């Protein structure tokens, strides 16, 4: 009986399991083809091709050093000066990993929020207006309006609306991280990449951040790297499991957490390693 079950499990478990998306309501907005990332001679990512559905939250999980952050940072070419990235990154039909792509224009569409809240040493208002001013938006009225909507979307407006001219460095960690989200969405990107945005936050702030992300899904496609599996399970539609530079499994979040196809995924999500 025992042995039989094990054999059955082993047979059911594939080595890799990566689905192709086919949801007409949420077409693929971003995908990678044959993506490889090298740090010097070391290959940090080699089998990591994924598709991301628009206006959904996709989570990238996996143990430390599995390549998930490397993958995420390659998506908006933040790895350009650190690593060599080969292969295609298709964004709405355009390969944005070509040398001829204007990365600055591209990053306006594919924004990023980092692990550590990193507001500038400027006022809350100026933090959000920063990228807008760089793009020539200078009208006070227009700026006011965008600052307000961005802060509202990031669920921070009610807490800071009277302190817009105070330094952003005075905010708590959770507030600062939501300010960074507000700052990123002020330029209305298409896609928002988040690199472990809650790892420096306490549970309450994490909960608020997750609520914010769920409400942002309506306007943005969100790809989030997280160490916290419960977080991935709570907020994402799709989950990719990275291990040792490869995507071992990519499927709907419920599939990954309830009925994973790959043994290693199963071990990881049930807490056997990582």
């Amino acid at each position, binding site marked *: 009986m025992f042995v039989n079950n094990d054999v059955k499990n082993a047979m059911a478990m594939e080595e890799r399991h990566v689905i192709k998306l086919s949801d007409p309501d949420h077409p693929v907005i971003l995908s990678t083809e044959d993506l490889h990332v090298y740090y010097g001679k070391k290959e940090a990512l080699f089998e990591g091709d994924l598709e991301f559905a628009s206006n959904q939250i996709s989570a990238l999980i996996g143990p430390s050093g599995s390549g998930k952050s490397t993958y995420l940072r390659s998506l908006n070419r933040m790895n350009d000066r650190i690593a060599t990235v080969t292969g295609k990154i298709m964004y709405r039909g355009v390969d944005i990993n070509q040398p001829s792509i204007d990365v*600055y224009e591209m990053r*306006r569409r594919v924004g990023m929020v980092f692990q550590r809240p990193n507001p500038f040493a400027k006022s809350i208002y100026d933090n959000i207006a920063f990228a807008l001013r760089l793009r020539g938006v200078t009208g006070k009225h227009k700026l006011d309006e965008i600052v307000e909507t961005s802060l509202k979307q990031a669920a921070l407006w009610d807490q800071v609306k009277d302190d817009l001219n105070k330094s952003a460095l005075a905010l708590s960690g959770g507030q600062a991280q939501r300010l960074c989200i507000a700052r990123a969405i002020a330029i209305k990107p298409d896609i928002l990449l988040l690199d472990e945005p809650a790892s420096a936050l306490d549970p309450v702030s994490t909960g608020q951040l997750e609520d914010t992300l769920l409400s942002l899904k309506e306007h943005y496609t969100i790809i989030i790297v997280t160490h916290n599996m419960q977080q991935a399970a709570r907020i994402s539609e799709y989950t990719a499991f990275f291990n040792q530079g490869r995507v071992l499994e990519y499927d709907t979040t419920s599939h990954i957490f309830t009925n994973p196809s790959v043994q290693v995924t199963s071990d990881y999500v049930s807490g056997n390693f990582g």
Partner: protein
Amino acid sequence: MKTTEQLEAKLKRRSKAAKLEIWGRLVSLTALMLIVAVVVAIIGFVASKGIATFTSNHVSLWDFLSGKSWNPGVNGANGKPEVGALPMIVGSFLITILSAIVATPFAIGTAVFMNEISPNKGAKILQPVTELLVGIPSVVYGFIGLSVVVPTTRAIFGGSGFGILSGTCVLFVMILPTVTSMSADALRAVPRYYREASLALGATQWQTIYKVVLRAATPGLMTAVVFGMARAFGEALAVQMVIGNAALMPNSLVSPSSTLTSVLTTGIGNTVMGSLQNNALWSLALVLLFMSLVFNLIIRLIGRKGRLQ
């Protein structure tokens, strides 16, 4: 019970490590006291000598600071000794400010290149070159100034070629490495996540440097410039070789003039201790010392302001 006492005795015994601790503290405290004593002694000595001009030679402080003619051995038309230090004070400030103005853009530009644009080349080529510039003795700078800068100035602007302009050129090269390496330190201290945040928002590298990195590094950059100014203000030998050493109010950038330091170095060996001539030079030294304290104070104030942000 016995074991408790044993333990207590053991814990209370001065161990070798504890003795070493006391010894270490003693050594560093002695070193500190010695340095404090030296600084106090220098200030005390220069001050006592410098004040003698006003106390025993009865020169008024105002005459000293505002008088335009410097000739300590001679009594002027009003019967008082001519110890007007204004030409030297003006010369010192002029040369300091001018060289800082010229050096700052070059220094910050180099620092930006070293740190932001090409860190590899910066570390391999520019860093050693800057360090080399620091190590060149000032007499070499002065000599090059004398044999290259002064004739060039003479050829272009006429006159003797000695003056504030030549001094500025020499000092510019001399303070450049100091300001550059301190600016580079200031840029290096700007956290990497500031740059990432800016780049991820679609800012170009130049926008990131200009709007984020330089802004965040401003207190450090100001400190670098003030340090450079302090160095320029105190530099004696190289300046003395190219400035012309005429204790006159500089009426143009190419007329021979002098600074506090150049008058000190040329004059101090030719006067008798205790004479008015000698005391007047000590007064100049006192002004120099006071100014370097002021520069230090400014650096500290900037540092504190930077931390508060």
